[in-house]
């Protein structure tokens, strides 16, 4: 199951992060999770929200450069070796982890949720399925975050 992630281009200077966040807040769009990548002069804000299309339209209308990318949410056992087990599964497949970040909190069954941006999301899904590693879709994600 893939999840839609929004990326927003920001200049690396004070105040630029608040503009998109305020827009989403006003429109009542909840940010489920986010991460911020930074370089000296620009940053990339990555967001997972409930209504991706609405958020995308809103940000674009207000002049932001926005991109939608597929990411995969994985359950990772919250114990030593939890993340290593997932990376082992991808070993030798040529699939690259471009970046990953975690969702806040942990799920009821003692797992942490991590979002992965793979170089080839479809191939990654195939490999994960073969290894019986559980992925979490957007509806499931919403439910867990609320529950």
């Amino acid at each position, binding site marked *: 199951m893939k999840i839609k*992630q929004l*990326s927003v*281009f*920001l*200049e690396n200077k004070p105040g*630029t992060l608040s503009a998109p966040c305020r827009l989403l807040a006003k429109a009542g769009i909840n940010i489920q999770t986010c991460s911020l*990548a930074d*370089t000296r*002069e*620009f940053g*990339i804000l*990555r967001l997972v929200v409930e209504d991706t299309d609405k958020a995308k339209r809103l940000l*674009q*209308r207000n*002049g*932001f*450069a*926005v*991109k939608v*990318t597929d990411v995969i949410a994985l359950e990772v056992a919250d114990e030593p070796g939890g993340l290593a087990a997932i990376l082992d599964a991808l070993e030798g497949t040529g699939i690259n982890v*471009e*970046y990953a970040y975690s969702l806040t909190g942990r799920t009821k069954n003692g797992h942490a949720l991590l979002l992965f*941006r793979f170089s080839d999301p479809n191939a990654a899904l195939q490999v994960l399925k073969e290894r019986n590693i559980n992925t979490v879709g957007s509806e499931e994600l919403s439910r867990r975050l609320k529950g």
Partner: protein
Amino acid sequence: MNMSKNREIPPMHPASAVDFLPPAQLRDVQFTRLKDMVQRAFDHVPLFRKRMDGQKLKPSDLRTLDDIVKLPFTVKTDLRDTYPFGLCASPMSEIVRFHASSGTTGKPIVVAYTQEDLNDWTRAVLRSLAACGVHNGDIVQVAYGYGLFTGGLGLHYGAEALGASVIPISGGNTDRQIMLMKDFGVTVVCCTPSYFLHLIDRATEMGINLKELPLRTGVFGAEPWTEDMRERIEAGSDIKAYDIYGLSEIVGPGVAMECVHQSGPHIFEDLFFPEVIDPKTLEPLPDGMEGELVLTTLCKRAMPMLRYRTRDITALEPTRCACGRTLRRIKRIGRRSDDMLIIRGVNLFPSQIEAALLKVEGTLPHYQIIVDRQKDLDTLEVQVEVTADAFSDTVSAMEQMKKRLAHSIEGITGLRPAVKLVAPRTLQRSEGKAKRVIDKRIM
């Protein structure tokens, strides 16, 4: 309202007949007018008389049209030095209009018109619009600035004289421009090409697709633009983009205009005599050779201009256009000798940066060139707005793009720039002319 584009070509407008004069007849007209004009300039403008006296040249020494090369040049600073009325050849009782261009250093450049001058200008703009297929029944949105700038009023009167329905909206207020364009079913828009690109972007943001509107023709000028920009404009709005050329020192827009073949603006040679010279030696160059465009007004009364150096770099096309006009064409003006920057001893034109940015896939040329000097060394920074197409969610892809842009610029200009990616719509947008270069160096 019918929202489809009607591209039927209208029958030739009677005023366009002059565009097709046999060359020998055209030369006769030019020579007769030149002699009269030089006599008036000599009689009424002290600067012109002084310069001709200095060369021991009398109006009667003009024996053929080719003798025009004997006349002294006029340059922009002559207008500044004689501010405001020093180059006027008509008494104030005959002058009915002034225009002025914003000067970068204090005083503006002032130009004056008699009623006859305005009539000639209106006719030149009418012929310009007719040449690219605009006709009675068209709804023309004039989004050039009205006022001292020649763009707005110039296009306005020409379009009215053609019998088109004119919307004198002037520049700026982009959302309203787009609203009227849609609600009125505008078929022709007149503005700067960079402003139209801005209109396309804004319309998209507003959820309006210009391709689905009746708009079919753009009359674009007042700044140099490239063939790539034309392609982007046409692809983004499904209109035909035509280049109108002019400068207020000569008359305003309507000195030259592209016909439906879009192969370079035809100069209205019965009104404005073109030459191309080598800007270093000032020697005339044959047709086909690139150099600085020099224009002589053949009819202007209030402010005749002898061999005015435009600073625009172009060439006179040596071949006849497929439309059959005998009026010669100039090559599209992509650059001005004024725009040239010298950075670390290397000549740089903004159009080269544009070409380099366009070579890198997906990059729209909203850019700004910032030149500075640090520790006696010139620095070149090119700020490029990130677009949705060029944007990636990974830092490595964005860094790659920066490298490709820098590499492309270096390949074309020989200068290694610092490329900086900036957020969309943060660079100064032109409601009029694009501000492409910021030179912070103190020379």
